């Protein structure tokens, strides 16, 4: 401590007068504290707004009719979001179910099988997938995926509309980069000696990867999966453009409306209880996201330990 004090004594001989310096020091200290806590303030404000606006709305509609009601008909003041919750959950989990194995395979490819020269470029291509704006995905879905599903629907004698299947395909593509990059990072983080030990025991390279490296990277891969769930459940624009948006019970080839989609679709012309019901949807979504965040936080802490 003494050496630090004497260092401070000499401050004025090197840079200017001491009085103004300590004042600036103190001010900057406070400025940095304020900046640091800005994120905390934002989270608190957001939580408060979500609860105070969504809570009363849900209370007025009634928790059970709101969460479990099957009819969403604002003109009749019926605000049941069960079909949307179901659609969101089905879409999210189907998307994860497809994207997780694909993502892990690509991550293994990038981390273990590609020569170092190419892995950088290939990683860039995957990063590009993450950078494409969600409306562009929506547009691609409208042009490339929806017409194919129309053909399938026509062949089966179903009405040709946007569908749950289209939403799932779009979500798979959108969460792939997240899962790939988190999995790749955690596979690369597994110490090489694990694999070496396995090889020394006589297993092949592939056996070592599948039975040693990937299981050792399990925590990171699970974290990537949870991150993917969060992205999928929160995605609005792209799925809205391909899903057909009818608030009815979901069927694979029928139109569905996801939880997120109601807000941008009806926001502009909603008022009164209708607008409040949208706040209520916001709160439900917020609770989902917070649960996912807390899970993720625990997972990351566990893998750090």
């Amino acid at each position, binding site marked *: 401590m003494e050496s630090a004090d004497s260092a401070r004594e000499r401050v004025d001989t090197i840079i200017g007068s001491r009085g103004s310096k300590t004042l600036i020091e103190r001010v*900057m200290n406070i400025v940095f504290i*304020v900046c640091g806590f800005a994120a905390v303030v934002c989270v608190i404000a*957001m939580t408060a707004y979500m609860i105070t606006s969504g809570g009363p709305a849900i209370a007025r509609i009634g928790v059970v009719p709101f969460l479990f009601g099957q009819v969403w008909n604002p003109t009749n003041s019926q605000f049941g979001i069960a079909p949307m919750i179901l659609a969101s959950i089905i879409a999210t989990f189907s998307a994860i179910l497809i994207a997780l194995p694909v993502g892990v395979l690509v991550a293994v490819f990038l981390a273990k099988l590609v020569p170092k020269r190419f892995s950088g470029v290939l990683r860039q291509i995957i990063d590009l997938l993450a950078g494409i*704006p969600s409306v562009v995905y929506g547009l691609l879905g409208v042009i490339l995926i929806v017409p194919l599903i129309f053909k399938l629907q026509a062949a089966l004698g179903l009405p040709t509309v946007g569908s749950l299947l289209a939403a799932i395909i779009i979500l798979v593509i959108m969460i*792939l980069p997240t899962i790939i990059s988190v999995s790749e990072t955690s596979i690369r983080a597994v110490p090489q000696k694990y694999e070496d030990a396995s090889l020394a025991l006589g297993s092949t390279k592939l056996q*070592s990867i599948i039975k040693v490296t990937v299981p050792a990277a399990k925590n990171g891969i699970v974290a990537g999966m949870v991150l993917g769930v969060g992205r999928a459940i929160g995605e609005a624009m792209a799925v809205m453009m391909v899903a057909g948006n009818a608030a009815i019970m979901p069927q694979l080839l029928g139109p569905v409306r996801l939880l997120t989609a109601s*807000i941008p679709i009806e926001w502009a012309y909603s008022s009164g209880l209708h607008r409040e019901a949208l706040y209520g949807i916001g709160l439900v979504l917020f609770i989902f*996201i*917070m649960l996912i965040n807390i899970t993720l936080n625990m997972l990351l802490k566990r893998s750090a330990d």
Partner: protein
Amino acid sequence: MTVAELSNHRAITEHISRPMEKAIYGVIYLVSALVLAMVVFFIGVILYRGLPHVTIPFLSTAPNPVDQTIGILPSIINTLYIIVAALLISVPIGVGGAIYLNEYATSKRFVRLIEFATETLSGVPSILYGVFGYMMFVLMFDLKVSLIAGTLTLAIMVLPIMIRTSQEALRSVPESYREGALGMGATKWYMVRTVLLPSSLMGILTGIILSIGRMVGESAALLLVAGGSAMYMPRGNLFQQFASSGSTLSVELYRYAASRGDNETAFGIAAVLIVIVISLNLMTRFLAGRLSKNE
């Protein structure tokens, strides 16, 4: 995993027959090739269908219903306004927050709290930022549906990116730099200003580029808080322009594709967006190269 745990993996020594192994390799290579080909195909489709629409008049005029011409200049300007203004807010706060976390914070509990808040913010989907921004900035601050409300909302949205990248940049500055500066008698702020900030400039720049990428692609939140359309050039002085509503490129793309059913113009905008995204990606790659060379 310990040696004991490893040896529990009896499966290691199990024999996988060679054809099986070849099949697994085949699946891995096939899936990876398909995913990579898909990305290239998507970008190809966007550029192939979009670039023919991207002409000088398309980029440099407002839509003209009389002549039936379409131009996206108003939304380009709106996008630039929102990005620059949001960065003016989020860069100082984000870098300051990172400096607090890395250099000033003494309480571990505060650090953990702030990091949890940052992670939470980065996990919140953009549609919820829209709802929150609407309640906070449009209703409570009475800013109306406007560019300034959009700016403030996006500034919060990119805050976690700025904090995280700045923190990484600060961490990569060797401890000896700090000790050197402090040992020469510099005060802490003087050390931060003259030693830490210049040495972490590249990392901070990476954060700025990532933030720009996020904001360029943003649509759901802006649809609620900045709304409007971009039929006209922004009018009045800068303050009036920020106080009026207007859509950015991504929101405009959505409007053309979903509300007006004009996929061709939407592809034109998509091509512009993709070119921006690719350039930003190349820039981060260049910066990452510079960074690793410095180390």
